[in-house]
Every structure is written in C-alpha cells, then in structure tokens.
C-alpha cells in the first residue's frame, strides 16, 4: 500500500474536507452509454462487459443470457439484485436444507453438516447466482465482518449471519448492516460480546476493539483505548442463548449485566440509563465518524479498483458514503462509475474462491454440493468462514500469488472431469461456445491469441480447456 490510511487521514485534516470532496469531478461512465464498440459475434461480450463480470462477479458464464449487454447496463441491473430472476440458483440451493432454516433450528443439525452446507452454499451461489454483483458484495462483507465457523457455536449461527445480515443488508445502509452484525449471535459468539458484562470485573473489550479497529473507524482512525473501554461498557449486557437453553441463538439484553453509568464515546456523551438503546447511539456515533467513511471507501476501492486504490477514488467514495448517509448501493455505484475502475482491467488476481467459481462458470460445470470442491478451496487456503482472525481473508493480490501449483492442478482435474462434485465436458464446452477461439473470447475478452496459449496445436480437448483455465489471464480479474 503506497498511501496509508494514516496519510489519507492526515491529508484530510478534519471533516470539513468532505464538503469540498463533493466538488470533485464526477467521472461517471455508467450513465454514458457507449454504443460505438465494433460489432461482435452474437453472444460475445465486449471487453468492458468481460471486465465488469469478472471484477464484480465470478466471471463470465458462456450460457449467460446477458452477454449482449453493455457493461454499464449490466452493472445497473446488478445493482438491483432483487429484480433479477434467480430461479436456477434457488433450485440448486434447495438441497442444502439448513440454509433455509430459522436460526435456532440449525442447531438440530450436526455442526459439521451446518458448516458444510454453509460453505457449499457460498460456493454454489458464486457459481450459479444471476445476482453476481451481490455475491461479490456479500463476499466483501464476509471479510469485513469476518468470523470463523470454528469458534464456539458459530458453526450453527453463521448460516443466519450470512443469509439474514450479509446477504439481506449488503446493499442497504451501512448502519443497518452494522446493526445486524452487532446484534447477531454469531458475532456475539465470535468476538465474545456475549461474555461482556459489567457486573463482576472489567467488561470484555474484544468486540469493542474490533468494532472500532476493523468494522468502522479502522486502525489509526482516531479512537483511543478509552474509547474502546467506553464502547465495551456501552455494549455490556447483550448476550445470546447457548446450547442447552430453549430458543438457542436468541439475543437478549440483560439490564443487570449492563453498565448503566454515563459514558463518553469518541467525544460524544451517552447519558446514564439508556440501557438497550445505548447500542443504537453507539452505532450512530461510529457510523457518522469520518474515519468510517474513509475506511469503508478504501476497502471498497481496494476490492473493486486496485490493490493500491487511487487516493482520489477513495476520497470521492468516502464523500459519497457520507453524503448518502452510508447508502451502500449509491456508494458502490460511485466506485464502479470511476474511470479508474473502468481502466483497471485485469489489475487484480482472483482469490481462490473467485478462481474456482470462475472456472466452474466458464465450463458451465454441473456442481454438486459435495466435499470435493470445498476441499479444493481448503487446499488453496480460502474456505468460507475459516479465516481464524477477525480481519478476514486478505484482499490484496500479493497474498495469493503462491498457489499456482494447485490452481493448475485444479484446472486440469476439472477439465478432465477429475474433481469430485463437478462435472465438465470439455468438448461440449467448446462446441457450445462455437469453437476454442469463441470460448476464449467469451471468458477473457480480447485475450492472447490461441497460438500464444498453445491451443492451436493441441488436439486434446481436455488439455485445451485446462490451458485456458490455467493461463495467467484467467488468474487475473
């Protein structure tokens, strides 16, 4: 990272700077329809579309009915996910019964089953959902509000966390999303909020610290140890019903465990006796803090534009976040409207989940929610809900450069039909696309010539398909 958040903050020198940010030139290419691209064969996406489908989704699926769209149209469509028909994905997820169970009922399953279905659901959604942007955004929040399904009762609770919080609120307001996270039993378990009580000793600061450091203001965002302690006191008393109780997972406020004294959080007074309402005040204060806007903006730009996000893009995104009241759809739209986004084609490396899902999509693979595909993710070090610490899987490309051996093996195994739980017929993949060139054009846009890929002289269809999937271009997004 060239520009650290601390430098950015220093350069901002106060909230007044946000006022002037609104005046930054809007480089909105989303609205500017560009119909002048040279005619392509029907069903062949232009490079802009390949770029947005690859960066903002999990890659091009040759059978996608939207390959004739313009990139900007596709993004506008994707920003309204609920309007997109998603029957195929819903049908395929139906076999994973726990995904539809109410929170407390997931406990009826063995925790391994719950965890397996959760992970399989993440992968199948990435592969099959037509709401590709939402899947990417959910993945973004899954890292931002990371939790590991190996801690405490998280294996049962993460199902609802993913569905009812991350998915449901991914494009609403940041405040509602944060409220959902903060009072979800999975997070109360993961960061020990449920053990945070004011009666008998010092409150547990674990969640309060991560709330400020990771979820909102960010490291160096201007909070102090005193703020951490005050937030911990303010959040004391919230707990969730555990195994052995009725209504497992129910989140409750126990006034007897709550610190009822007045507090001071980030310079704002919280009068005594607010009790359960105090959490709302804390959410309000942290969401309104300028560092939160910058922190979220920077992470969004890192995810969607570049590992070293352009400072101008970060500042403009933070300004949009602030002026829209933390409207995530508007904030994301402003990121995707930046010229820097449009110009960042293939600037990033697909993380393993992205790579695996993209390969399965490119091949129109028939996937079963079995262990096989999840083992691949495990081997590549990217199983959903397995990162042990609250900072989430690394978002930068450098972290993920070392896994080529396993990427190549997966590419070959998949193309040859050797991955348990994924059926692929290489001959059919090429036929449906209208030949090898057409297939490459669909998946990668203007990519290296077939000769450079060494496909011209290759008679074996499986190996030809593996070569495309293992190519450097396919690793990028």
């Amino acid at each position, binding site marked *: 990272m060239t520009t650290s958040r601390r430098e950015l903050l220093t350069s901002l020198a106060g909230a007044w700077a946000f006022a002037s940010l609104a005046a930054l030139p809007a480089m909105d290419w989303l609205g500017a329809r560009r119909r002048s691209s040279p005619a392509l064969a029907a069903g062949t996406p232009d490079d802009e579309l390949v770029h947005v489908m690859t960066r903002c989704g999990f890659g091009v699926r040759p059978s996608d009915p939207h390959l004739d769209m313009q990139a900007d149209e596709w993004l506008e469509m994707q920003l309204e996910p609920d309007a997109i028909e998603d029957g195929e994905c819903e049908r395929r997820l139906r076999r994973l019964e726990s995904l539809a169970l109410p929170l407390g009922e997931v406990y009826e399953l063995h925790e391994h089953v719950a965890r397996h279905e959760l992970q399989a659901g993440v992968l199948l959604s990435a592969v099959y959902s037509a709401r590709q942007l939402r899947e990417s955004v959910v993945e973004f929040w899954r890292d931002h509000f990371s939790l590991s399904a190996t801690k405490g009762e998280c294996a049962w609770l993460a199902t609802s966390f993913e569905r009812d919080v991350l998915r449901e609120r991914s494009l609403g307001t940041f405040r509602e999303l944060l409220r959902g996270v903060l009072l979800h039993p999975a997070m109360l378990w993961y960061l020990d909020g449920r053990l945070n009580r004011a009666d008998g000793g010092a409150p547990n600061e674990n969640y309060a610290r991560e709330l400020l450091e990771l979820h909102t203001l960010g490291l160096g965002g201007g909070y102090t140890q005193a703020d951490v302690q005050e937030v911990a006191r303010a959040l004391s008393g919230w707990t969730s019903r555990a195994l052995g109780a009725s209504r497992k997972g129910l989140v409750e406020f126990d006034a007897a465990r709550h610190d009822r004294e007045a507090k001071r959080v980030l310079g704002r007074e919280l009068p005594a006796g607010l009790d359960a309402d105090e959490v709302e005040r804390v959410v309000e204060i942290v969401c309104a803090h300028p560092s939160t806007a910058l922190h979220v903006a920077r992470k969004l730009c890192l995810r969607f534009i570049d590992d070293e996000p352009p400072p101008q893009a970060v500042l403009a995104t933070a300004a949009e976040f602030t002026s829209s009241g933390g409207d995530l759809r508007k904030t994301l739209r402003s990121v995707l409207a930046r010229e820097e986004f449009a110009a960042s084609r293939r600037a990033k*490396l697909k993380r*393993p989940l992205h790579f695996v899902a993209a390969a399965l999509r490119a091949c129109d693979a028939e996937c079963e929610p079995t262990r096989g595909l999840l083992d691949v993710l*495990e*081997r*590549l*070090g990217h199983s959903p809900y*397995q*990162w*042990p*610490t609250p*900072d989430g*899987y*690394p978002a930068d*490309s450098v*972290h*993920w*450069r*070392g*896994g*080529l*051996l*396993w990427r*190549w*093996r997966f*590419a*070959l195994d998949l193309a*040859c039909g050797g991955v348990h739980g994924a059926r692929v017929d290489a001959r059919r993949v090429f036929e449906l696309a209208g030949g090898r060139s057409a297939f490459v054009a669909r998946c990668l846009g203007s990519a*290296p010539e077939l000769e*450079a*890929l*060494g496909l011209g002289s*290759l008679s074996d269809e499986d*190996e030809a398909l*593996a*070569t495309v999937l*293992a*190519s*450097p*271009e396919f*690793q990028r997004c």
Partner: protein
Amino acid sequence: MLNRTLVAVFLRGGADGLALVPADGDADYQRARPRLAQSRGTGTILDERFSLATELAALAPLWHAGQLAVVHDVASGDDTRSHFYAQPLLERGGERAAGGWIARFALARGTHGLSALAFGTAIPESLRGAASVSAVRELDDLDPGPRVTALGQRLAALYDTDPWLGAPAADTRSALERLRGLRRADYRPERGAEYGSDGFSIELAQAAQLIKLGVDLPAVCIDLHGWDSHVAQDQFLAPLMRILAGGLAAFALDLGPALERVSIVVYTEFGRRVGENSALGTDHGHGFVSFVIGGGVRGGVHGTWSGLGATSLLGPGDLPGTVDYRRVLAPVVERHGVDARRVFPDFDGEPIPL
C-alpha cells in the same frame, strides 16, 4: 532465505515436560512425583537440574554434538488448561495476527514452490491462511503427473511475460519437475539412518526425502498425538517418547549436512501438573518443554527456571511458564531470514539466544 526448511512438530494433547526432561536433580521433583519420578542417572544428564528421559536416549548423540537445545517452562501468557483453546492459541502465535504463525512465516519467507506441507488429512491451525499449503497423507499425493507438468510448460511463455506471476510460475514449474514421479517407496535413507515403522517416523522420512529433493519448501508441520496422560502415564508415554526420539534422531542423521538448513522445533499446547495424580498420571498444567534441533542451533539448556518450590508454581501446582513460547520460535524464524515481527506482530519479548 530460500532453501531452508522449518519442521514444526506439535505434540498434541499437552506433553508432560517433566516426563520428557525430568528435573531429577531437584528434590522437589522427586517429592512431587513419588511414583512417577525418574531417578538421576538413568537418563542422559543435561546439567545439574535436568536429564533426558531414558526413553529419549536416541537424542543423546544430538545433545553431545551440541545440536539439541532444550528450553524448559515454555508457555503462552494464557493459563488456559483447555486443549481446544490452547492449541489454536499457540498455533496462531498471538491473539491479533491473522492466520497461523507458520502460515505467516511461510508468507514472509516467500516461495513459489510448495509453501508449506502438513502431514495428515487436514491443514493445521498453524498453517491457516497460507497459500498453496497442502495436507498430504503421503508424498505420492504430490506427484502432479505428466499432464500438469506439460500444462506448466505450455503456458511458460505466457507466464514469463507476466510481471507478477512470471516468477511464481517459473518456481512452480521447477517444483513440478522435481516432484514428478515422487514415490515414498523409492526412498533410501542415508548414513545408515533407520526410521521406525510408526507414522511419525514415516512422515519425517518423507520430509527428508522432499528436503533432499531440493524443492523449495519453507515449512513442514507434523503432529504426534497421544500426550494427554491423565492415567498411568508411564505405560504409554514410554513408547511415545521412544517414537519421538527415534524419529528425530533418524531424521537428523539422514539429513546429515542438510540439517544445517533445517530447523526442527518441538512444542505442545501446555505442560502438565507438577504433582502426579492418584491414577499415576498428570493433569493439564501450564509450562512445557520445547526442543530445537539443527540449523546451527546452540545446544544446551536455555531459558529461566524458577524451580519446583510451592511458591514458584502457578495455580493448582503448575510450572508458571516463565518463557513465552515466542521467545523460542522467534530466533528460529529469524534464522530462516524472516523478521520475527512479521510472524509475531504482538510479541515484543526478548528472543532466547538459541
């Protein structure tokens, strides 16, 4: 530093440090363990306080050659006595850093070969977050087969022009070449090293095979289970200790000069109660013993030892853990050319001069 390998041996279950390295020169030890204590002189004497367990006799040559470092009373700062809390705690190497400590080590060390290898079916917590880590039951699983090798070759020209992926791809191709046709059964240990037929020794033999192959491999993780000795511990710790010592000794002998570029570190989640229990076992305790072998280590007994008097013990009578475990791991990590602060960001203690 490329071409150096860290071999981390985790003794699962909480290995009894006072069984592995008894303080048989200390009268308090004999008093605390009237029925379990080893008598002075039966095991290799390390100094005026400690001896090796008689069952660890196979390590004596390494000790005499100055290649075995022993650190007693090592622990994390958390006095948990839960296996399931303590194991991941140590494997993560801190509360705040992401992933496992060996994963961060492998990442900081950098490789485009294998990154890290764990024997078994699952990736241990210490490797969580490492890229291209593999859990293998045996080396044969690593043989990529001719088609993957050909795939790498076919794409070589394209990868060569890629500014990011060119170097990792070249390293991957070279690893593929070396791993081709790899068969465990073909391996012949050198210098007369004889590995046992137990799983631990077989895994070490395969680690040696891989290291000698010259595949860049920053870390190998090996688990040895079964140390949770609540009951009749003499009976089953004895064979387990023989397996541990026999495996490590054969591994060191087999590697020969290559041991210079290999560090072996042996650790566990916690030690055990100083006093024996009524079932001739010991219960979960705190401070444990750690071994470091190879890689130019300074042999000897290191660390601080506050004795076994009642006032120096912790809680129900446990070794207090005077040496933070990262004071042992940090110098090992540094010897592999990795800044220990990158591996243990929330640790600022003094590394033990191993």
